[in-house]
C-alpha cells in the first residue's frame, strides 16, 4: 500500500513540478510564449519544399509566402481579387512587339502580337532578412559542428535587394538541377528559357564539379534582361495577360545568389541545412526554427521594408470593422509558431483550449461547432458562442467534378446519343445530396466550370445550368423522369442498350477504394441505379489511376482543380482540346475537344476582363453544358473558426501572405487560456480513495494467505 501511495504522490509531484513554471499545466508551449505577440498555427504534414522555385502546395505556401515576397500580391480586402505591387514599385509596364520585333500599340490585335515585354521596377531600399549567407567570410569557412539550431547564431548581415536577385531566381526556375514544377510551363512563354535550361544541362554533364552559382551566373536567358539595379524586363511569347498572376506567386520571388552558395557547403548539406529548408527572403517574417517533424517558427524580419495595413476594402470588410488597423506598419505580430498536428482530434481539442488561434472544422467535430438554421444558413452552436468563437465561410475557388472520358466509346464522343446519356447522368447524380451527406453541407453545386469569385461566374437565374436545373423561385434539379427520357433518347431505355438488349454497365475509376470511401462509392452506385445503370467501381492505387488517366483508359473519374490565379482561363483551359491529357499530356483530364470551344478559348484567354469577354465565356459555358463532359460537381465551402483575440481575419482565397495582417490580443488569449484550463484534481482524489478502498480486502486476504498453511 505504501508503494502505491508513493507512486501516486510521485505522479502528482511530477505533474506539479513540470508545470509549476506556468499558470496552467496543459500548456503545450514553452513558458512565456503564451503571453507574447505570437500567432499559433499548425501544419498537418511536413512541407516537402520551402524553396520558392519548388514549392507548389498550400501547406508550403502557408510558410514561404510569409518569408518570400514576389513582385505583386492580391489586395487583402478588395473584391474581386485585385493585384497590387509588393516588392515592385508599380504594376508592370507591358510593351507589345510583332514578329520582327517592331513595337506595337496597346490596342494591337492578338494575332499581330508576337512578343510581350514586362518592364518591372522594384521598390527602393528593400533589404533581405538577416542571414549568415550574406557574411561572405562564412562561405570560405564554417564551423564543422554547426547544427540547425546554431545556424542563426552565426554572424549575420543583410544586403539590399536588386533586380539581379529576381533574374537569378528565374534562372533557378530553368535550372534542371532545381526541378521546378513550372519550368516546363514557363518554357512555353519566357523567351530563351528552354535554351538556357538545355545549356545548363550540358554544363552539368560537362563540368559536374562546377559550382551552381557560377554555372547559373555564367549564362543569360535571352528573354530576361537587366536594365539597372532596380529594373529588369521579361520577354514572353505572344500575349499572355495571366503572366502577371504568375509574377505574384512565390516562384518569382527574389533569391540572393549568396544563399545558394552558402547552402552548397557539404557541412550544411550533411545536416539537412539546405535552401529547401532554411529560406532567405525579404518578407515580413524570417524562419528561426525549422524542425518539420515538430514545429516551424517565424520571427518578424527586422529589416522588413515599410508596408502598411490597407486603407480600403470591400463594403463587407468595412462593415465588419476590418479597417481599424488601416495604415499601421506590418506585420502586426512578432512571431508565428506552426506546430505539427497530424490528427484532427487533438488539434480540435487544443483549439477549444485556446492553444490554437484559428481552426478549420473536420467532419468529426462539425456538429459540435456548426448548426444550420431552418433557412439553411450556417451558425455556431451555443458551446462555440459561449467561448466567443467566430465563424467565417467562403466558397473556395476550386471545382470537384465527375469527368467522362470523351475518348470512350460509350460515354464519350460528340454523337447526339452519347451527349444525351451524359446529360441524363448529370441530372441523376444528385450533388445536393452529396454535399449534404459527405461535405456536411459545406459546398455549393457547380453550374459550370467557373467557381464563384472568378470573372465569368454568374449568380442567380442567369448562372443556372439548364441541362440539369430549372429556375422555379430558386434552383431546382430536373426530375429523374427527364433524365430517363434523355436516357431513352440516347438508346438506353430503362437502362437497357436498345441495339444489344444488354443492360448498360458503366465503369468508375477511383483511387479511393478503402473502407473510408465505401459509403461514397455506394452512394454513387445508387445514383446510377436511379436510371437502372449498373455502375462498376474499378478501385486502384494512385499510380495506376494516374496511368489510366494518362493513357485515356478510364471511363469515368472524380477529380478536382484549385485555382492558380483568379482568371477564368485557369479553369477553361481544363477543357481546351490542346490540353487533352491522353493526347497532349495536358490538364484536360476528360480529353474533351470541341473546335468551337477551342477557338473561343484562344480568343478569351488573351482578353482583359470586359463585357465582350463575358459574352465569350457565356458562349463557352453554354457549349460545355450541352456537351456535358463533366458532371460539374461542386465548389467546396471553407469554414473557419477563430477566437475572439484573433483579429483582422478575412477570407482571401488567392493571397497566401495573409499572416502579416493578423493581430493577436495576447492578454485576452492568456485570460481565456487560464479560464479554460484550470487543473481539475478532484477526480484523482476520488481515484485514490477507490484504490485505497480496494486495497482493504486485498490486505485482509493477504494476511489470511500469509497465515494459512503452506501445503
Amino acid at each position, binding site marked *: 500500500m505504501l508503494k502505491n501511495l508513493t507512486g501516486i504522490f510521485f505522479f502528482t509531484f*511530477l*505533474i506539479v513540478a*513540470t*508545470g509549476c513554471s506556468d499558470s*496552467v*499545466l*496543459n500548456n*503545450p508551449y*514553452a513558458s512565456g510564449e503564451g503571453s507574447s505577440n505570437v500567432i499559433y498555427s499548425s501544419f498537418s*504534414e511536413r512541407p*516537402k519544399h520551402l524553396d520558392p522555385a519548388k514549392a*507548389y502546395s498550400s501547406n508550403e505556401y502557408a510558410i514561404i509566402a510569409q518569408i518570400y515576397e514576389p513582385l505583386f500580391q492580391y489586395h487583402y480586402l478588395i473584391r474581386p481579387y485585385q493585384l497590387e505591387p509588393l516588392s515592385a514599385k508599380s504594376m508592370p509596364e507591358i510593351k507589345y512587339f510583332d514578329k520582327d520585333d517592331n513595337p506595337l500599340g496597346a490596342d494591337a490585335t492578338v494575332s499581330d502580337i508576337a512578343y510581350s515585354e514586362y518592364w518591372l521596377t522594384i521598390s527602393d531600399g528593400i533589404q533581405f532578412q538577416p542571414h549568415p549567407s550574406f557574411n561572405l567570410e562564412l562561405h570560405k569557412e564554417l564551423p564543422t559542428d554547426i547544427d540547425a539550431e546554431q545556424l542563426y547564431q552565426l554572424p549575420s548581415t543583410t544586403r539590399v535587394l536588386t533586380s539581379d536577385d529576381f533574374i537569378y531566381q528565374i534562372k533557378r526556375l530553368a535550372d*534542371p*538541377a532545381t*526541378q521546378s*514544377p513550372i519550368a*516546363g*510551363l514557363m518554357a512555353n512563354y519566357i523567351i530563351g528559357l528552354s535554351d538556357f535550361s538545355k545549356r545548363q*544541362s550540358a554544363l552539368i554533364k560537362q563540368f559536374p564539379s562546377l559550382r551552381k552559382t557560377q554555372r547559373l551566373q555564367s549564362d543569360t536567358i535571352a528573354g530576361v534582361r537587366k536594365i539597372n539595379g532596380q529594373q529588369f524586363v521579361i520577354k514572353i511569347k505572344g500575349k499572355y495577360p495571366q503572366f502577371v498572376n504568375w509574377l505574384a506567386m512565390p516562384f518569382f520571388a527574389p533569391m540572393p545568389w549568396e544563399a545558394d552558395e552558402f547552402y552548397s557547403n557539404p557541412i550544411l*548539406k*550533411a545536416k*539537412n541545412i*539546405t535552401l*529547401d*529548408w532554411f529560406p532567405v527572403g525579404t518578407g515580413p517574417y524570417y524562419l528561426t526554427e525549422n*524542425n518539420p*517533424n*515538430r514545429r516551424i517558427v517565424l520571427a518578424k524580419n527586422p529589416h522588413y521594408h515599410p508596408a502598411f495595413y490597407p486603407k480600403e476594402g470591400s463594403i463587407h470588410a468595412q462593415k465588419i470593422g476590418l479597417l481599424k488597423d488601416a495604415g499601421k506598419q506590418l506585420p502586426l505580430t512578432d512571431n508565428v509558431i506552426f*506546430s*505539427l*498536428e*497530424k*490528427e484532427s*482530434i*487533438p488539434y480540435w*481539442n*487544443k483549439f*477549444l*483550449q485556446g492553444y490554437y488561434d484559428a481552426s478549420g472544422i473536420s467532419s468529426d467535430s462539425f456538429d459540435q461547432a456548426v448548426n444550420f438554421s431552418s433557412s439553411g444558413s450556417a451558425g455556431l452552436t451555443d458551446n462555440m458562442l459561449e467561448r466567443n468563437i467566430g465563424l467565417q465561410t467562403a466558397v473556395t475557388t476550386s471545382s470537384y467534378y465527375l469527368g467522362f472520358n470523351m475518348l470512350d466509346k460509350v460515354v464519350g464522343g460528340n454523337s447526339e446519343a452519347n451527349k444525351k446519356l451524359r446529360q441524363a447522368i448529370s441530372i441523376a447524380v444528385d450533388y445536393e445530396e452529396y454535399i449534404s451527406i459527405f461535405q456536411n453541407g459545406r459546398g455549393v453545386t457547380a453550374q459550370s466550370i467557373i467557381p464563384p469569385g472568378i470573372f465569368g461566374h454568374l449568380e442567380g437565374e442567369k448562372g443556372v445550368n439548364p441541362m440539369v436545373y430549372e429556375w422555379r423561385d430558386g434552383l431546382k434539379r430536373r426530375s429523374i423522369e427527364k433524365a430517363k427520357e434523355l436516357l431513352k433518347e440516347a438508346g438506353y431505355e430503362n437502362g437497357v442498350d436498345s441495339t444489344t438488349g444488354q443492360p448498360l454497365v458503366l465503369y468508375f475509376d477511383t483511387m479511393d477504394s478503402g473502407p473510408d470511401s465505401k459509403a461514397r462509392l455506394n452512394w454513387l452506385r445508387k445514383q446510377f441505379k436511379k436510371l437502372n445503370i449498373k455502375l462498376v467501381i474499378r478501385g486502384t*492505387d494512385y*499510380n495506376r489511376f*494516374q*496511368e489510366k488517366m494518362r493513357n485515356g483508359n478510364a471511363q469515368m473519374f472524380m477529380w478536382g482543380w484549385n485555382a*492558380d490565379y483568379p482568371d477564368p482561363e485557369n479553369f477553361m483551359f481544363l477543357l481546351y482540346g490542346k490540353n487533352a491529357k491522353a493526347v497532349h*499530356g495536358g*490538364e484536360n483530364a476528360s480529353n474533351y475537344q470541341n473546335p468551337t470551344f477551342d477557338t473561343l478559348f484562344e480568343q478569351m484567354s488573351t482578353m482583359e476582363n470586359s463585357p465582350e469577354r463575358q459574352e465569350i465565356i457565356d458562349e463557352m459555358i453554354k457549349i460545355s453544358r450541352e456537351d456535358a463532359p463533366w458532371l460539374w460537381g461542386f465548389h467546396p465551402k471553407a469554414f473557419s473558426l477563430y477566437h475572439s483575440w484573433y483579429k483582422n481575419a478575412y477570407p482571401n482565397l488567392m493571397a497566401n501572405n495573409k499572416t502579416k495582417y493578423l493581430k493577436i490580443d495576447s492578454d485576452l488569449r492568456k485570460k481565456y487560456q487560464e479560464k*479554460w*484550463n484550470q*487543473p*481539475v*484534481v478532484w477526480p*484523482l482524489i476520488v481515484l485514490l480513495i477507490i484504490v485505497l478502498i480496494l486495497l482493504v*480486502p*486485498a490486505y485482509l*486476504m*493477504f494476511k489470511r*494467505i*500469509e497465515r494459512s498453511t*503452506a*501445503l
Partner: protein
Amino acid sequence: MINYIIRRLLYVIPVLIGVNVLTFILFFVVNSPDDMARMQLGDKHVTQASIDNWKQQRGYDLPLLWNEESAGLSKASNTIFFTKSVGLFVFDLGISDNGRDIASDIGQRMWPSLAIAIPSLIIGVLVNITFSLLLIFYRGSFLEFAGVFFCIALMSISGLFYIIVGQLFVGKMLSLTPISGYVPGLDAIKFIILPVLIGVVSGLGSGVRWYRSLFLEESAKDYVRTAKAKGLSDLQVLFKHVLKNAMIPILTGIVVILPLLFMGSLITESFFGIPGLGSYTIDAITSQDFAIVRSMVFLGSFLYIIGLLLTDISYTLVDPRVRLD
C-alpha cells in the same frame, strides 16, 4: 561463445541481402521510377522532360536489375538495385529522394521516439510483472477473477480508444497535461507523461495475462512446493524464486524488441505530435521515397537480427545451463 557470435554475425549478410532484394522487388512492382518522379514533382504542369530530369539526377534512369548496355560486371553494377544497395552494407544510408540526408533525419528523430518507448517499456514491464505476480498470489480468490476480468476488458479496447479518451480526460477535462506536443530536453517530461501512461495502461491487459501464464506454469513446479514446505512465505516464493526462474521467456520478449524501440510508434507519435521515427517509413511509402524505405527496412532487419542475438546471449546470463556453441 565468441565463435557463435561471429557465426551469427556472418549469417546477417545473406539475410540482409535477401531482405534488400525482397524490398526492391516489392517496391518496384508497385512503383515505377516514373511514378516516383510524378509523386515528387506533383500533379500540376509536370512534363515528361521534368520526369526524365528527376530520374537522371537521382540515378533512377538506369535499368532496375540488369544493364544490357553495359559490359562485364557493369551489367549488374550499373543498375538501380546495385547503386542503391551497396552503400547500405557500410551503413551509408544516403540521401532521400526528397533531398534530405537520411542518417541525419534518423539521428534527429530517434530521440523523441526513445523518450516515449523506453519509459513505456520499463514502467510497463514492472507494472505487468507486479500485477501478474499479485494475480498468482491471490490465485483462486475473487481478486484474481476480478483482475483477469479487468485484463480482458483492457485487452478488448482498441489502442486508439485509450489515446483519444486519455487525451480527452487527462488533457482536456482535467487539464493536467498537454494534449499533444513535444519539446526537447527536461521540459519533455510534461509531454511524455500522458503517452507513457496510456502506453502502460493499454498494454496492461495483454501483458499481465501473458506474464501470469508464465508464472502459473512456473509456480506449478516442484521447487515451488519445496520452497513453501521449507516455510518461505508466498510473497518470497513468488518474487524471489518464481520470478527469477521465469526470466528466460521474459527476456526473450524484452531483449528482442530493445533495438527496435527507436523505430517508434506510428499511432502514438501521430496523435501526440511526437517528432519521432514512428511515421518515417509509412510517410516514405506514401510518398514513394524508395531511398528511405530501403534504408528503414534494412535498418529494421539488422536491428531485429541483433535483437535475436542479444536474446541468445542474455539466456546465458540468466540461465547458467545454457551454453552457446
